[in-house]
């Protein structure tokens, strides 16, 4: 389990995260939603030790995160973020093999084992990138690159996946494919995932647990039906919404009702 307990993170005087708690359990996809500046990405970034909290605890399988080395954290917690601008030519396969670094025997030396190649090829297949494995990352479209970033995270075989707006660059079909892959990893390998997203309907469809954040605080945690209510969403996003059941899946479907529509 990966747990944030009463976490507070400060940037100067501003509390980006304010006594927020979160629990990631095996097999569960958790979506973290909330308006811009609510502290979602900051909270996610603190969970693998990149941002240090001012107060509160992060527990990795009941042990404080500080007890683990960088490598051992990376072996257990993988992050999918918007990838940085690449300044050197790197092939897709080389990029994905970066996820196998934590499995190398030496600290910074060592060559990929057959098992590393096997894992990389499997995740490339899963992310539909096998055909592109020899291409340079710079030759891929934004969506393909985002899939490569996911493939690299999957290649670490970490039990916790932290995804920071993983679907931002993706078209509808790849959004669903990417989150299906994450869900599959959670179902089949008992991994736990945290997905920060602005797409509430995607969260409703794929997440087992939804956490709603506002001004650094986790104001509500529960299943999508409990969290995605018009009252709570109005309070947090200050937008009137219509919530009905998705005609196929039955999960809550959220439609904003903007002021302009009221005239119709």
């Amino acid at each position, binding site marked *: 389990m990966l747990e944030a307990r009463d976490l507070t993170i400060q940037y100067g005087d501003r509390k980006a995260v304010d006594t927020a708690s979160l629990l990631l359990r095996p097999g569960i996809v958790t979506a973290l939603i909330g308006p811009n500046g609510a502290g979602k990405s900051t909270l996610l970034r603190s969970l693998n030790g990149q941002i240090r909290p001012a107060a509160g605890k992060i527990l990795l399988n009941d042990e404080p995160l500080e007890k683990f080395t960088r490598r051992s954290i990376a072996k257990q917690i993988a992050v999918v973020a918007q990838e940085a601008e690449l300044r050197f030519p790197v092939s897709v396969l080389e990029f994905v093999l970066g996820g196998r670094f934590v499995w190398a025997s*030496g600290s910074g030396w060592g060559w990929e084992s057959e098992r590393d190649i096997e894992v990389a090829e499997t995740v490339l297949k899963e992310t539909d990138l096998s055909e592109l494995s020899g291409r340079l990352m710079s030759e891929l479209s934004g969506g393909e690159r985002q899939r490569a970033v996911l493939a690299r995270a999957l290649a670490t075989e970490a039990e916790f996946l932290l995804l920071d707006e993983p679907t931002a660059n993706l078209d509808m079909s790849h959004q669903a494919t990417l989150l299906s892959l994450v869900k599959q990893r959670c179902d089949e390998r008992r991994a736990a995932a945290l997905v920060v997203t602005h797409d509430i309907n995607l969260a409703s469809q794929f997440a087992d647990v939804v956490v709603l954040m506002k001004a650094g605080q986790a104001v509500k945690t529960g299943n999508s039906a409990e969290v995605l209510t018009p009252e709570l969403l109005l309070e947090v996003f200050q937008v009137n919404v219509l919530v009905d059941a998705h005609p196929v899946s039955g999960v809550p479907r959220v439609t904003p009702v903007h002021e302009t529509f009221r005239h119709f």
Partner: protein
Amino acid sequence: MPVAATSNFPIQQNRATLRKTLVACGALLSALLLAILVTSLVGSERLPSGGALCALVSLGTNQCGLTSDQFDILFQIRLPRILLAAAVGGSLATAGASYQALLRNPLAEPYLLGISNGAAVGTMLALVFFGRLEWSRPLMAFAGALLATFAVYRLARGKVGASPERLILAGVIVTTLLSSVIVFVTTLMDATRIRSFTFWLLGDLSGASRGLLPLALAITITGAIALTFNARSLNLLMLGERDAFDLGVEVGRIRIIVFVVASLLVGSSVAASGSVGYVGLVVPHLARLSLGSDNRISIPSAALGGALFVIVADTIARTVIAPRELPVGAITALIGAPLFIYLLKRS
């Protein structure tokens, strides 16, 4: 479903592997040894090729018909200078390749970032204050290089990390600042020393101190090995510090290793031969272009390639207008600058 390890992914052939690295480094090492042999025969004083080669291959245990003057020229003057050229080239190319990976900037280079100037100021201060202590020069050069490295890094690092433009600008600021210090100290020198000093600043192996050769060689070899052993971490750092952190790299530790080892490399090479420019820029570029971006192959190849490059450049420097000599830095710049323009256009 398990996937067979022997699949037909086309990139498999292009990916850096231990075998490919050993083949590339083996070929470069052979070329380097050949260059050492061949360039030992070239110089203002003609040596009989057969005898000289025989003496070299016997590592000086057999005089092979050379006169004692010829033997001394070969083993006391030419070979040490060639080995020093190899150490300087290997050091600068290795330092350049590692700075480029760590700072994610293909233009990062000891000379352009002002790190060579930092080492030059250190060497000058050692000359002024501890003139008789030969070992003080590489030590002070190392300190100067390290200080310049941290200064550039701190200046370049904004709130959102070091952008390539900021880094180069920081390099320009540090270079010009240190250049003015150099000019200030130079003007205090007497006229006879100014010429040799200017030569040294441009990169010159002719006045090289033989006493520093074992140290320079030892630093080059251990430095290149140390950085190669961190090459996989550097591969991830090339993708960005945040990505490297997420993937398990101890970013701070690697940064310190690269800064310290590269400063040692630059320091020992500047103390021995002044600021030889462009080696750290051109050689790693050629290594990456021909062998790929993987630092596990490009760093050791750059080390060997750099040694080869400076040996050839110095042979040109000491023969083209013989018996007079050019500073080797002028030759590396003459070869390096057009090659770099070509590389820029190609990319």
